[in-house]
């Protein structure tokens, strides 16, 4: 076992900032695949991707609650919070990256890799050296220079151990303002519920829930509530059949499902603003989307800093983001061989960062920028 990389509250806060960035970083790829699906087609695939994306939003909220509970300041507006795609994943392999892709076998393959159950093959294998290719990494150690995690599950296991250790040394660890907590009434649909974090027990429950919902690590393919883990949800798209209770991981036996890979807007993979013809109407729409997304992250930041009621407004904003997605994916991108446009998630700087938010987590920011 390697020595813990979390030794005090500041380390924890750094890790939780990374965790928020990590949870968020999975959302643009899921949304890109989801909105690339042509309306009234691919019901199965659309619902599977949608539920995972929605639950990532729950995870983001849970991490914000933990961060608030120990006196951190969630901030989704700091530079680099949104990674530059393609970005590396921390699953122990260096040979694939997370792109913004239309629904495709490649996209589903990547989603399975993101959510894949993964315990390090050796007890000391949790931390690995980061690759040198220059692509950003989603989950890395903010405190051990140049190191990253074998899997998302291992990343959370490190935080849980660190939390237990720091809490044992510091009885005042959970001294955050309870008014900052987002309560269960705000989470809409999907599996699971928001856990209000006030102590070590609730913090660990929230973290274990995140890990289990993604990967089904210890709990098999279904969790205690009977919910299928994300990894297995995506596997259904590869295996062409739904799971049902009692199934073995590689042999789903529920109703069949099919994917119409062609009923998809073939959007350019990880499009950049530079791919858009300068000055075109389409480029304007892409820029507007990025600005709206930046503003949305700023709204979430305020919601996580004492104004949870703003999450109601965020619902309307999400419908607007959907409209923005639709404007782009339905139009071909000039000069890209018939490929369609898609949001680039290049968030302009200075998007209403909460002036009160801590400048915090410089270390964590570094890892997710290019």
């Amino acid at each position: 076992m390697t020595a813990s990389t979390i030794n005090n509250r500041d380390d924890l806060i750094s890790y939780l900032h990374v965790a928020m960035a990590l949870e968020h970083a999975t959302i643009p790829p899921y949304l890109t695949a989801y909105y690339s699906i042509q309306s009234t087609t691919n019901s199965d695939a659309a619902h599977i991707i949608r539920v995972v994306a929605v639950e990532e939003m729950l995870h983001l909220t849970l991490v914000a609650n933990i961060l608030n509970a120990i006196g951190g300041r969630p901030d989704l507006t700091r530079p680099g919070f949104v990674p530059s795609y393609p970005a590396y994943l921390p699953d122990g392999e260096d040979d694939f990256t997370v792109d913004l892709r239309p629904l495709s076998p490649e996209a589903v393959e990547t989603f399975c890799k993101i959510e894949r159950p993964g315990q390090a093959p050796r007890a000391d294998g949790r931390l690995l050296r980061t690759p040198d290719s220059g692509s950003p990494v989603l989950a890395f150690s903010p405190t051990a220079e140049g190191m990253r995690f074998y899997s998302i599950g291992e990343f959370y296991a490190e935080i849980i151990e660190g939390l237990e250790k720091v809490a044992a040394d510091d009885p005042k660890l959970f001294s955050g303002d309870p008014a900052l907590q987002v309560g269960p009434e705000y989470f809409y649909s999907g599996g699971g519920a928001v856990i209000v974090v006030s102590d070590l027990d609730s913090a660990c429950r929230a973290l274990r829930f995140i890990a289990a919902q993604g990967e089904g690590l210890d709990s098999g393919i279904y969790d205690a509530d009977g919910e299928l883990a994300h990894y297995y949800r995506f596997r259904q798209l590869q295996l062409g059949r739904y799971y049902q209770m009692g199934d073995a991981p590689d042999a789903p036996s529920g109703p069949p499902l099919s994917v119409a890979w062609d009923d998809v807007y073939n959007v350019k993979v990880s499009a950049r603003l530079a791919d858009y013809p300068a000055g075109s109407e389409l480029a304007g729409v892409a820029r507007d989307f990025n600005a709206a997304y930046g503003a949305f992250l700023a709204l979430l930041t305020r919601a996580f800093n004492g104004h949870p009621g703003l999450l109601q407004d965020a619902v309307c904003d999400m419908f607007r983001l959907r409209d923005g997605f639709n404007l782009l994916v339905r139009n071909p991108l000039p000069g890209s061989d018939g490929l369609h446009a898609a949001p680039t998630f290049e968030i302009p700087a200075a998007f209403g960062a909460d002036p009160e938010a801590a400048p915090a987590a410089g270390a964590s920011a570094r890892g997710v920028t290019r």
Partner: protein
Amino acid sequence: MYAKFPEGAAKRTDPTAASEVLYDAVIVGGGIAGALIASRLGDAGKRVLILEAGPAEDLTLRGYESYLDRFYSATSKDNQSPYPVAANAPMPRGTDARRIVPGAPDASAYIVQSGPFATDTTYTRVLGGTTMHWEAKTLRMLPEDFRMHTLYGEGADWPLTYEDLAPYYNEAEREIGVSADVKDQAYLGMTFDEDYVFPMKGLPLSYLDRMVAKDLDGMPVELDGERRELRVRPFPQGRNGIPNPAFDGGKGYVPRGAVSTYQVEVGGRCQGNNNCVPICPVQAKYHAGKTLAVALQSGRVDLVAQAVAYKVHVDEQTRRVTEIEYRRYDRPDSPGFTTMRARGRLFILAANAVENPRLMLASGLRSSSGLMGRNFMDHAYLLAWALLPEVAGTFRGTNCTGGITDLRGGRFRRRQAAFSVDIHNDGWGWARGAPMTDLIDLVDAGGRYGESLRQGLVDRVSRQLQLAFMVEVPANPSNRITVDPAYTDHLGNMRPILTYDIPDYTMRGVAYARQLSRRIFARLGAEDHTAYDPNFWGYAVHAGEGYEIRGGNHLAGTHTMGRDPSTSVVNPDQRCWDHDNLYLVGGGSMPTVGTSNVTLTIAALSLRSSRAMLAQLDAETAPITVTSTGAGRRQPQEVAR
């Protein structure tokens, strides 16, 4: 959490094999009444067969989305537009209504209308029944609605009181998943158990509701010497909202989402789409498929669909029902069918207040009271529409979130009908087809396009205010469902014939509603655009004034309950006075319709009756010898209530 529909359950029961089974109960109709009774009997270990007229398809998310696709692409967005038309189990459609020429019944659509008043009332014949298209308003009836004759000398008294039904209202609200706050719903005598909370917190009033409330709240109204102040009040709704952690003594409530054979995560909460009627895009609105899915999981509930009941067979001596003969069609669009029979200890007709009496009358069972099919009721809707002085966000929110309920009860009911008033978040949609008609007009007459069209549409619709007055219709024996062998459907089933007129009592309420709408519009500074077209199919004249009257699809009263077999068709348990093992359940049993949408009351009555059915089944433990000519064993005990 989603409601798992067991894969294959819509087809797994072989009708031939099922005809050899003596079920504890055979239920006709897979709507809310049938689903609730099946679930409760199944839970108690009884074997149940449901016969459903609609297509035999498992309820899956994909199947539900095919309803949605049909709705999105339909030109007419009426209540039935999402649901497949099956000639073998035809459905009335709102678009069927024609003005009736005296003496010439309109037989152009499924319901033959002999008038004199034409109605556009509908019901849906698919698995889940009319709860597929209902709006999910779940008002309880007022205590006084159960005692109309005693209190006001109008209509009938129920053999039950509000207090008798209250525990079943509670249970129905849990089953449906009602969002409401007790503080908003405790009015006009409606009481709730101490510490009662609804499963979910009340849904918020829409922006439009609040704009109206700003000027309307406190408006004084004097009627029959009683003064009251109007206010905009939120409606209780069978749509998923925020679970109330205090529900069930602090155990909380988990909303029931979409129904599917595979795990899905939608429908946990209402998203504020504006087409609750005819279909909620995400299944946040309750429909009976949610109850049915759970009932089918027990394995004790069988379902045979594409099964249209043809005749109720009765033993000549005992008058007990021996079997239900049904026609099972092979395909929804072809005329081929097989005649099958279903046998059971108990038989439960849970079709609806039109189909129940239709089947009974087609079977020659007129009730010794002579009342089978009589006392048909619906609500008479009067619409009034206006433009508000400022933008009020019309079309935001669900179909309807709030309204005026202060005139649901009171002494005035001695002379005129009561009503509840809806504020429609879909603007002039019901009255004049907004926003589609506005769009067409802007394009065709205004030559608008692009940005100017978008803005023009917003300008026009966002100030629209439509009030819908839901006026009670009292029981009247001459408003009735009959059958005639001259009118049959594809399968040879006799079609329902409706004879219907709007009583003066109701028309006095309608006239008052119109007068009140003028005062409300004046108080709001709204420009009244209401105009009733004399050529409208539901045009009715009262005291020299004409009104457009529409149906509410709140079917009631065709087999009313009572304590006296000579003046009612069913007893308070909804058991037929004439046939000891036959229950007619649903709105048809209601002696008055009051001013609440009927589904919640239907659900409460069904839950109450399921107790009586279980008691009867337990009392009649020995198997009954049933043949088409043989005698039944003995008279059952009167069921305790």
